[in-house]
């Protein structure tokens, strides 16, 4: 799955039930600084960050460990769903 064309997908997925794993994210990412918010965020940016965390190319505390629980494609679906959330 590519990240392109996610805007349309985000609108479709926004109203749908969260994809696998997505509902867990808001346990931390709900708008309390310094933890970044996911809702409404550019999905390409989230996917790039998670790919870097998974690859170990971006410094992390815990997200490197969590990103490894999801493939790139799964990450795209989750990020796209979050992009459609308010």
């Amino acid at each position, binding site marked *: 799955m590519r990240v392109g064309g996610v805007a349309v997908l985000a609108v479709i997925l926004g*109203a749908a*039930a*969260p*994809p*696998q*794993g997505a*509902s*867990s*994210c*808001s*346990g*931390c*990412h*709900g*708008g*309390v*600084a*310094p*933890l970044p918010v996911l809702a409404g965020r550019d999905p390409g940016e989230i996917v790039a960050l998670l790919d870097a965390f998974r690859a170990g190319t971006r410094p992390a*505390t*815990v997200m490197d*460990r*969590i*990103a*490894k*629980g*999801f493939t790139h494609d*799964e990450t795209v679906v989750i990020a796209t769903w979050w992009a459609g959330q308010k």
Partner: protein
Amino acid sequence: MKRRALLSGALALATPFIARAQTAPLVVVIGGGFGGATAARFLRRADPPIDVVLVEPSSTFTACPFSNEVIIGQRDIAAQRFDYRGVAATGVRVVQSAATRINPAQRSVAFGDNLLNYDRLILSPGIDIAWGALPGYDEAAAERMPHAWKAGEQTLLLRRQLDAMADGGVVVISAPANPYRCPPGPYERASLIAYYLKTRKPRSKLILLDSKDIFSKQKLFQAAWKELYPDLLEWVSLSDGGKVTRVDPSTNTFETDFGSHKADVANVIPPERAGAIAAAAGVADRTGWCPIDPVTFESKLQPGIHVIGDAAIAGAMPKSAFAANAQAKVCADAVAQLLVGSAPVEPRLINTCYSKVAPGNAISVAGVYRPVNGQLTDIEGAGGTSPLNAPAEQRAKEAEYADAWFETITRETFG
């Protein structure tokens, strides 16, 4: 949709809208902690709408995460307390009452003189202390040797005892065998009490008697203890005789097969089981905990009843607030799907638990889980603990994230 009878006027007076003719399905949630309150709020997001009743005996919830900081005087208990106004604001009918009887065949739940027929029931009762499982430890003993494993008065009692203890005193904590609420909790508590003693009563000692040889974030805790509290904190493993076989509240003594330990302050973290309503509903097995389907969290023993949070046997997922909240969201989605006749999708769940080894100094464990052969199972290669030799600034960052996590999750749960 079948019609429901409400057998008493008392509830109708308290919540007049409860008796209205219902067209939406009704889900009753029992227990207003991280699992139940989250499930109730998220069920209200479903389309088509679901009527949700949350049955909870207390008017406020007192959170366990961060309560170890209350014990050492670094945090006010008020920061742990949450009411249900934010839950009610989503349209959940919050009933302050204790569920007394559940009839799975009739799909009914009784509280007080009231009876409600549900389409689905979600139980999130948390834990009860298994009184009697540790000889000598009963409710009266807990007034002398607090467990402080359900936050509230017990937390404050332990705090007062620590405050009152003279410098040079001995604090003894006993940790139970698995499974129990918050696997790293006893070790965070030992760390923070050791910090309190080191800074306030440095001639004191802390002995942690353990019924296990292996525990959560073990290497990280042990490295922190060696670095921060080398002469103060002593961990006694199962193999070294740490298993407590009896306690005597009249002398504040812990007995093991290897001898006895007399404490000035005694904290017994006792054996536990699922909250009592689980056994009453027939969803707890002989272990005292509740086997569930890992996709829907529906009980393997009683159809129509879902169990989430500490009470559930959730495979590799620990009994944590994060897990209860994550399970609640998955369960709410699954229940909404089932109510419209759809098959819930296989879930993926995350858990993250922070522990502070000193103020501003935290470590974490994380996991990602999916159902495999009917059990929630760790995804290999994912999860694990913070690195062993992380620099101080990384530990400080994790402490900051822990604080933000508590704010976030309590906001999501209680509004």
